[in-house]
């Protein structure tokens, strides 16, 4: 039974990512996490590792924290392990039914340093909800490439220079890796489609877990676009087919947002300074790959 979109007017009024946090103006992650936490609600325990969500916005300085929820700012490499520990202890105490056990980690903390424990925790079937916010690089430490940095992107560790060393490797497909673990629920989301995102969070809560939700969160600072264009960029990613919104529940695939007339990838890429150096040939390569991906999912 796939997710049902939740209309924005029906979103709960409570806020759990509080005002006064220090994310950059226009931060895509802050928008998406705020939406997700409204749906998750008060009975949620959070494990939050290093990254923009912690060091860049909510942790401290002492005595402040940016979440109105029980939170452990866990070690960078073990988010899913912390979740597994919390979930198991609640289970042992007979309290698991009461709480959502949720991790919110960036792409680096998920696809790179956090991959081992995520694989382990979901394989063991812990009833956790793991949310990855993907700004496609290590942004909090100053824009270094990660496993999910897309082909063609400039970052400080894939600089352009005379040797054109922008990222050559393809984007690591985390949702597919999670699907290969045969877990009950995997979904992709975007802050530009809040009803879809909210419906998916709700579905993950209903299923219990392990559930994996991968949110595409544009970053004005690292992607190099004006901060007021975050939602526009997020929407263009979906409208061009570069980010596909789908869910897989117990192996059954559903395409949530079908774009009949896709915008050319150039429109999405040219709005971002991190792709400024791409040649017509590079763009053609990207367009071809997107066309193939979309065809494969029936779009």
């Amino acid at each position, binding site marked *: 039974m796939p997710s049902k979109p939740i209309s924005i007017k029906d979103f709960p009024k409570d806020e759990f990512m509080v005002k006064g946090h220090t994310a950059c103006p226009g931060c895509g992650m802050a928008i998406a996490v705020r939406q997700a936490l409204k749906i998750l609600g008060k009975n949620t325990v959070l494990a939050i590792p290093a990254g923009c969500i*912690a060091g860049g916005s909510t942790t401290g300085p002492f005595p402040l924290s940016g979440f109105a929820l029980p939170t452990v700012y866990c*070690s960078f*490499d073990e988010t899913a392990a912390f979740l597994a520990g919390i979930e198991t202890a609640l289970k042992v105490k007979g309290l698991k039914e009461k709480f959502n056990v949720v991790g919110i980690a960036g792409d680096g903390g998920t696809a*790179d340093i956090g*991959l081992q424990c995520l694989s382990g925790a979901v394989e063991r079937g812990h009833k956790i909800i793991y949310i990855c916010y993907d700004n496609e690089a290590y942004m909090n430490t100053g824009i270094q*490439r990660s496993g999910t940095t897309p082909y063609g992107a400039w970052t400080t560790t894939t*600089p352009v220079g*005379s040797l054109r*060393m922008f990222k050559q490797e393809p984007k690591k497909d985390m949702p597919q890796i999670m699907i290969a673990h045969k877990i009950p629920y995997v979904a992709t989301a975007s802050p530009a489609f809040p009803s879809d995102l909210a419906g998916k969070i709700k579905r993950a809560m209903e299923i219990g877990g392990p559930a994996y939700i991968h949110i595409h969160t544009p970053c004005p600072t690292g992607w190099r676009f004006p901060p007021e264009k975050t939602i526009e960029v997020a929407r263009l990613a979906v409208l061009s087919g570069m980010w596909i919104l789908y869910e897989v529940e117990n192996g059954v695939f559903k395409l949530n947002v079908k774009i009949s007339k896709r915008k050319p990838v150039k429109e999405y890429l040219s709005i971002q300074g991190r792709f400024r150096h791409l040649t017509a040939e590079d763009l053609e390569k990207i367009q071809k790959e997107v066309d193939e991906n979309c065809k494969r999912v029936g779009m």
Partner: protein
Amino acid sequence: METEKLTFTGNESAALGAKLARVEVVATYPITPQSTIVENLSRFIANGELKAEIINAESEHAAISICIGASLSGARTFTATASQGLVLMHEMLHWAAGARTPIVMAVTNRALCVPWSLHADFQDAISQRDTGWIQFYCENNQEVLDTIIQAYKISEDKRVLLPSMVSLEGFILTHTVERVDVPKQKDVDEFLPPYKNEFFYIDPENPLAENVVVLPDWYMEYRYQQEVAMQNAKEVIDKVSKEYFDKIGRNWGGLIEAYMMEDAEVAVVTMGTIAGTARVAVREMRKKSGKKVGLIKVRCFRPFPVEEFKKFSSLKALAVIDRSYSFGCGGPLCTEVKSAFYNTEEKPLILGVVAGLGGRDVNVGDIINVLEKTIEVSKTGKVERETIWLNLKGEQLR
């Protein structure tokens, strides 16, 4: 006409040191405050200024493992990390030293969780003191650049063959800009020849196996060899300092630097940037009140400068300022200084001071207070409290 840049951050200085040393393989993982070292190296490579491969590893544990693989295969290898990243490498730090790989690592010192801190202290590097790595602690950006170059010469020396870590405090050095003289590549090439791995190498005609199981009958001899290498390092460090001075023109001392110690009766012992601030304190105290105070800067913590300290056994009193702590025991530097004097006939009274944890500021006034307290101890002949935690809220320096 292009203006030559004269000032550099500590991180730029570390990257320049690695570039001049012609490193061949770099494997790192991002962590504040190290990130600009890697950005600079990436930029050098992208511009063709440095011929090296840079691997953006999936974690620090992976990064150091990649470095070990590369070093064993004959490449001059470099990495940089801090804090949680360094302690995540811990398992492999022992491995690298046991495997005798001459890796050089820049550690941009940062305090450890919990609580979470981004600011400087030495807990990260100091807590690795048993791993078998040579350890340097730098006072300023010039020393960082020079020490990284020297570290390769020391580590790759046949009598040593041990990895080195070069510490520079987070933000205080990493992001601080000051004048740094960048040596010419030609001069560094003459000082530092290319790396040639003679103990483990890949050769199908002569296949070798690294890290086979060793039973109790031979394990101790391996460990003893490592200790001999550490002891040899003392002589090599002194020699390399002199060679660097001859070639490039700067000498940071060997294992320690004694500042105004010729007629000192009381001294402060410390490492890193606090040593710089201590110099000013010593100079001011001498100027204002003529008190005979001095500074012993520990530049190299491993191997520990035991013989150098024994030479100061006739001092009346010492204060040792640690920017780290060993819980349930005392400041690591203080504990080791005390140990150096244990068997000497005369020995100074020693006061332990813990300061600057989590980046707390340590200024000239603080060090003057510490020296005044040490002078008091030298007069009363008694150390009432073994360790003082400096400037703790709610407590005064008694």
